[in-house]
């Protein structure tokens, strides 16, 4: 570790050559992400990320705060564009031009900030961008949206007493449930969940994880889920990938790793960074 600390680039010196990160894959991948890089001005959020998602699998995406997890999710969801790298969905090149475009290709997302509209009702939020319309009139079919919203929320089992109130009046956990319901209720078969349990109580968290387990049992969707709680990771995920320093440092089935191993990676990195900072 001391040797690694000494390797940290000194100002004015050329950085050490980057190791070539091997591209991970499996024959039944629905999504593959290769050599993704993304910078925000001086900040390198993602350096070289390879990720793959197999059909019907739940992949846990781990990493410290600011590691670039949300950035990766936003690139896959079509909200941001990567600086470099390629993506494939079901073997086909995947270059989403917009969130709508990604959705049309079967990718739907729950963002960390939930993307809920406070001033709109629960059911308008649930159907945002997928509104039911009274054809041939371009008017909203509120009755149908209310009915379907009720059904979708009951299916998840989260208690939302009224669906015609604005979401500003709901609790943090209820809001999160609505964001999850919105995505799960779409036709997407690749679902990205950015910290879906962050504001949830133990019971509501368990309900969402049950929902994820149910979706997995149905076998139709594949899920990438960002989580910070390792207990939940081992409960819900088939495989984990960990982002560190803008690249994937661990990619293992949950059965082959442990809370101890995951913790050790994080702690080692922390020590290494601290040593490097001390020079």
């Amino acid at each position, binding site marked *: 570790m001391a040797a690694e600390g000494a390797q940290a680039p000194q100002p004015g010196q050329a950085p050490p050559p980057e190791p070539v990160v091997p591209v991970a894959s499996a024959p039944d991948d629905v999504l593959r992400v290769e050599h993704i890089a993304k910078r925000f001005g001086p900040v390198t959020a993602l350096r070289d990320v390879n990720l793959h998602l197999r059909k019907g699998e739940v992949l846990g995406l781990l990493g410290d705060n600011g590691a670039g997890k949300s950035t990766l999710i936003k690139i896959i969801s079509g909200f941001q564009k990567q600086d470099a790298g390629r993506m494939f969905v079901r073997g086909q090149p995947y270059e989403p031009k917009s969130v709508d475009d990604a959705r049309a290709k079967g990718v739907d997302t729950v963002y960390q900030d*939930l993307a*809920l509209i406070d001033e*709109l009702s629960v059911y308008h939020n649930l159907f*945002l961008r997928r509104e039911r319309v009274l054809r041939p009139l371009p008017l909203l079919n509120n009755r149908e949206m209310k009915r379907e919203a009720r059904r979708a929320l009951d299916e998840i089992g989260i208690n939302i007493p009224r669906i015609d109130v604005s979401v500003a009046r709901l609790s943090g956990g209820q809001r999160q449930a609505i964001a999850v319901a919105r995505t799960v209720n779409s036709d997407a078969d690749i679902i990205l969940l950015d910290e879906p349990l962050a504001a949830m109580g133990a019971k509501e968290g368990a309900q969402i994880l049950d929902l994820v387990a149910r979706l997995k049992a149905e076998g139709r969707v594949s899920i990438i889920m960002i989580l910070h709680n390792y207990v939940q990771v081992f409960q819900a995920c088939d495989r984990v990938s960990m982002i560190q320093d803008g690249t994937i440092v661990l990619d293992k089935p949950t059965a082959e790793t442990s809370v101890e191993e995951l913790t050790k990676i994080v702690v080692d990195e922390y020590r290494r960074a601290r040593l490097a900072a001390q020079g």
Partner: protein
Amino acid sequence: MASVAQEPASREPGGPEGPAQERRALPGWRAVGARLLALREGSIIVIAIVTAIYFSVNTSNFFTGENLETLLPYFAPFAILAAGEVFVMILGEIDLSIAGLYLFAPILFYKLNTSVGLSLVPAVIVALLACMAVGAINGVFVSVVGVNSFVVTLGMLFTFEGLSLIISKGTPVATPGGQPPLGTFGKVFGGGTYSELIWAVAIVVILQIVLMFSRWGVYTVAIGSNKLGASEAGVRVNLVMIRNYMLCSLTAGLVGVFEAVRSATVQPNPAGPNEILFLAVAAAVIGGTLLTGGSGTVVGALIGALFLGILKDGLILQGVQATYLLFYTGLAVIVAMTANVFVGRVRRGQTGGG
């Protein structure tokens, strides 16, 4: 004069209290009041009714057909302008350029008719399309380029008022189709007694339906409430914003043509349009549309415009001197807005509890 000056001022603090006392006395009134206050437009409806009652008690001829005709031009144009402005204000933006287009549209219309030789209807259509193009430019600057909307539209306001002066060479022009005796065109486009009223009601009804029951309306509220969230959810934010600015410019051009036809001439003097701009924004705000965005109502803007019209008309009927009108209008706007804040608090308290 001093007594005239005092009378309306002493009324105003009592105004909003009137129905509250009535509600306390009569349980039926209380239920009606509660229903009314639950509406976003509730407080301005109450204020407008109280003002109308005040003037009908204090003047002999407020509720006469003749006076109603006098009242119409005091509010119908503002209602149309405010309806368009509401769509921009819900986004959390503002459009000041409507005063410029209000002046520019009839002058362009005049030029197209007299110099280019287009007949009346095509000339109006081209003039309005030009206004919408300006709206699109406003929208692009605000959404895509990201310039502050106050600054962009202020620039456009000066630009188009200036352009109007240049084109007209600063001299009044006779509105084509607005000269007596009025033909069908003149009667439809603002010259007929009820023309602007009919346009105003039709435009307000349609835009309120669009706002409440269409995707366009939902996306407008979504952008004003949470722009980032709306774009994450896939709402095409720039497109909606550009569209709303185009709508706002269209209403501005339309009202400009109406007023030019109604008064038979266009005065290329920015002072009038600028005052109309502020009254239109005031009507929208008094009606319950937030300047901060996320929430608004077109019907409220209509009633806000009606309130301003009733106020001006009533003050004139009372014999208030023209020099005092603006002063009282200013006070009334402040009182109405303060009442709005209180009623808003009551409403939030009520709905929060129930």
